[in-house]
């Protein structure tokens, strides 16, 4: 019974989503801070210098999480895009839209930290390595996604177009990755042979894990928050937003939310 009453669609209704974010974000932020403090401490004071790379390898503790998040967020965005396209759940689109800037930021940081790690390690800021190149392409995919959204005048059409683009892009990400990888092995002689991540001491692995956790929680918190603002902006005319502004944030949600709520089709009723 309980399960039937709180299916995942409960939180797809904008009003319930607002409550959910209100409850979740402090925990996510708190978790991110705790993990980041522990992770930074481990990365700088516990993990020993690498015997080959000295201290520059400490950049990897933020580089690897950023790269993972960049890729993960794009896939997540595509999943939300599909949910939006197939079930017309607008919240999914707001989530996809909210994830994009953070994903682009993470991808950019992966490139930036990668360059700064490469400089002392390979002696150059940039090589046309497979991973670097496909990360750069990923950044272009993010930029195209965001640009398409702003370029289409009609909001709903822009959202659906962007969802489709995210899907096509996500299918292409592995193809791009493998083709670039293949291209790189063919041209191995021309570029620097890259060492992979150094063999890790347990403390290094712990630091990486902690920083990845912190990064993940941060991304979740900021994307949820952004989606929440997005919901408020789009639902500005509804009764529940007015009640919310008048009475302050409530912590209770509407257990009878339906698919129609999630799609915004019965929103008209809520208008005064």
């Amino acid at each position, binding site marked *: 019974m309980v399960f039937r009453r709180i299916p995942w669609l409960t939180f797809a209704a904008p009003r319930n989503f607002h409550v959910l974010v209100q409850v979740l974000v402090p925990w996510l932020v708190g978790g991110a801070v705790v993990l980041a403090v522990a992770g930074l401490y481990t990365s*700088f*004071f516990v993990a*020993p*210098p690498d015997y080959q790379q*000295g*201290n*520059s390898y*400490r*950049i990897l503790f*933020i*580089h690897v999480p*950023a790269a993972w998040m960049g890729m993960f967020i794009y896939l997540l965005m595509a999943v939300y895009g599909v949910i939006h396209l197939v079930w017309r759940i607008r919240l999914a689109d707001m989530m996809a839209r909210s994830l994009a*800037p*953070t994903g682009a*930021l993470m991808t*950019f*940081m992966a490139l*930036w*930290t990668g360059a*700064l*790690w490469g*400089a*002392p390690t390979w002696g150059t800021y940039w090589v046309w390595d497979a991973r670097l190149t496909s990360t750069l392409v990923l950044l272009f995919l993010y930029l195209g996604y965001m640009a398409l959204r702003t370029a289409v005048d009609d909001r709903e059409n822009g959202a659906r177009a962007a969802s489709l683009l995210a899907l096509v892009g996500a299918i292409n990400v592995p193809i791009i990755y493998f083709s670039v990888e293949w291209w790189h092995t063919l041209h191995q002689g021309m570029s620097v042979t890259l060492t992979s991540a150094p063999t890790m001491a347990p403390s290094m692995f712990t630091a990486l894990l902690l920083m990845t956790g912190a990064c993940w929680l*941060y991304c979740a918190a*900021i994307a949820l*928050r*952004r989606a*929440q*603002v997005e919901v*408020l*902006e789009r639902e*500005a*005319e509804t009764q529940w*937003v*007015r009640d919310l*502004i*008048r009475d302050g944030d409530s912590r209770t949600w509407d257990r009878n939310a339906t698919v129609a709520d999630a799609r915004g089709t019965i929103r008209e009723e809520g*208008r*005064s």
Partner: protein
Amino acid sequence: MWDGVGDFIAMGGHGPYVWGSYGLFAALLLAEMLLLRRRRRRTRAMLVRRLRRTASAQSPGEMT
């Protein structure tokens, strides 16, 4: 492990790279959070204004 603050900052000669990475990362995360906070406040203020306007106008149904 570190020989004082200076040694920590120097990072065995890799200081600029390490701090350049961590610094920009921190700065961009901070910027993202501040921008979002500003946007959130603006949205809230806009909603409050709108609520006041409808309350004073007493005319339901004027919105689309």
